């Protein structure tokens, strides 16, 4: 079996230790880091699809993402040396007043699994912090998460802050979280709502592409 398939399959099973060993083996054998990354990403793709289809659940995604991170950590310096570029850049955070971050972290993992560069702003993030980060770090997408009906309104403030800063046309705003819906997305003028973490990653990739990343 090719080592890339082995990496992908073990990642899907969440076997972090084995994935790390296999990635190291591949590096030692002189494989192109970009190609090894492809093995990791293909594994996350499978997990993401299964998650969207309800075939696997949050624990499987979490262990797969951990395995992905362990492999990717070894590859990062090599990819930087080779001048490889991410497929886009997004900033993500849980909105102001909300500290819940499981959903946000899942989305971040799935996005990294799609090869996006993710700036994690953490929790309780103000609308200005989202927008300023997007401007300063050239992010194509702002991703906002909320758990509470009492905090989801802040997402509308993020849209307004982007308008006020004059970057609304340059930055897409993606929202998600327990109380959020398509109707709410339209109501506040955000660009996209996605129902789960894997879909959020797919949409973010498409939005980055649309903006020419």
């Amino acid at each position, binding site marked *: 079996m090719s080592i890339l398939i082995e990496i992908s399959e073990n990642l899907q099973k969440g076997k972090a230790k084995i994935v790390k060993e296999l990635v190291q083996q591949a590096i030692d054998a002189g494989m192109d880091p970009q190609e090894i990354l492809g093995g990791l990403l293909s594994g996350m793709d499978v997990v993401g699809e299964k998650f969207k289809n309800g075939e696997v*659940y*949050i*624990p*499987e995604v979490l*262990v797969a993402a951990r395995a992905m991170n362990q492999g990717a950590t070894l590859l990062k310096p090599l990819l930087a040396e080779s001048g490889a570029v991410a497929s886009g850049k997004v900033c993500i955070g849980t909105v102001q007043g909300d*500290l819940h971050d499981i959903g946000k972290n899942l989305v971040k993992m799935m996005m990294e699994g799609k090869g996006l560069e993710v700036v994690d702003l953490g929790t*309780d993030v103000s609308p200005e912090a989202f927008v300023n980060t997007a401007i300063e770090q050239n992010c194509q997408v702002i991703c906002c998460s909320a758990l509470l009906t*009492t905090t989801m309104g802040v997402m509308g403030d993020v849209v307004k802050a982007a308008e006020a800063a004059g970057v609304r046309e340059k930055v897409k705003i993606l929202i998600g979280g327990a109380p959020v819906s398509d109707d709410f997305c339209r109501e506040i003028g955000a660009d996209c709502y996605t*129902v789960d973490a894997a879909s959020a990653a797919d949409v973010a990739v498409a939005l980055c592409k649309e903006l020419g990343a």
Partner: protein
Amino acid sequence: MNARERCLNILHYKNVDRMPAVHFGYWKELLEEWAEQGHISKELANTAVVDGSVAQKELDKILGWDCVWGYSVGARLGLMPTFERKVLETLPDGTQRVQTGTGVIERIKPGIVSIPSEDDYLLKDREIFETLYLPKMQYTPERLNAEFFKNFNETRDKTVPIGISLGSVMGHLRDICTVVGMSYLMYDEDEDLFAEIVDTYAEMQYKCVEATLATGAEFDFGHYWEDICFKNGPLLSPELFDELCAKHYKRRNELCHKYGIDIISLDCDGVTEKLIETWLTNGVNVMFPIEVGTWGDQFEPARKKYGESILGVGGMDKTALRKDKAAVDAEIERMKRLASMGGFVPCPDHRLMPGTKFELVQYYTEEIKKIKV
């Protein structure tokens, strides 16, 4: 008829004079808001948050509620003793990293009302389980306040339903391990250890329930808390949930049945559909609170699939109580349809949250009582 008789009759498909106005309790911040608006006193706002308390009953009366669902009593079913709660670190913005009673490290930010974010957790391997947690997961007689149950049947409020606390087969462990920690243990690091933790904890809780029932105290229903689902369904695979938990529900529920308790209610937020089979086939028959508004959970599909064996309390979109009369009327109409199936008690689908309008709650309770069953 009183609220207890109404609730229990409906859940046994018997006649009632009218629908009871049942709720799930209040967010503390809502009560503070109502106090600020002059609807209730500050003193009431501080005390009415406790389910089953005299103060809550006083507020319920003002609003027109008949009772709260889910109020249950029993032995101490968690870690005992809990870990000492301590502040590990205070960050420049005032955020504190706190080790909680379950051993989870939480990040708590001043002035923010939210579920805290979890930074870390203690229960990561067998050594920690055996040294720190196992001693806290044992049954001891101190878990039961025998004095409280001595004259329980005579002194309890006989007008409202009171249940026996049956604990939690998975939800408490989710709180102890965190979702992330639980996932790593279950799926990668040590699945046997996780199964052993589930069994150990369940054994302690079984003995607690056994000791409580042995006091002779009589209860109207049994009540679990799980909260093991979210917007897109369960937090773990239904197959694994069944494998780990089914036997424990069955054993605990059979014990309740021996004591004549045939209403077994389970509080689980999120979309519960994929776990219902495990619960129902192992003796849990009341789904609560059926979160329609926030998560889109539904009762009708379960009733269609499982027939009259499945009962429900909840299902009313509480967010309507933040809007206007028209939104409440629409919910009342929906509740009428659900109630007509029998075995279903309408109740807001979670605790009433900030922004809920005092006068709309009063309107809702008036209208819901008009529903004939």
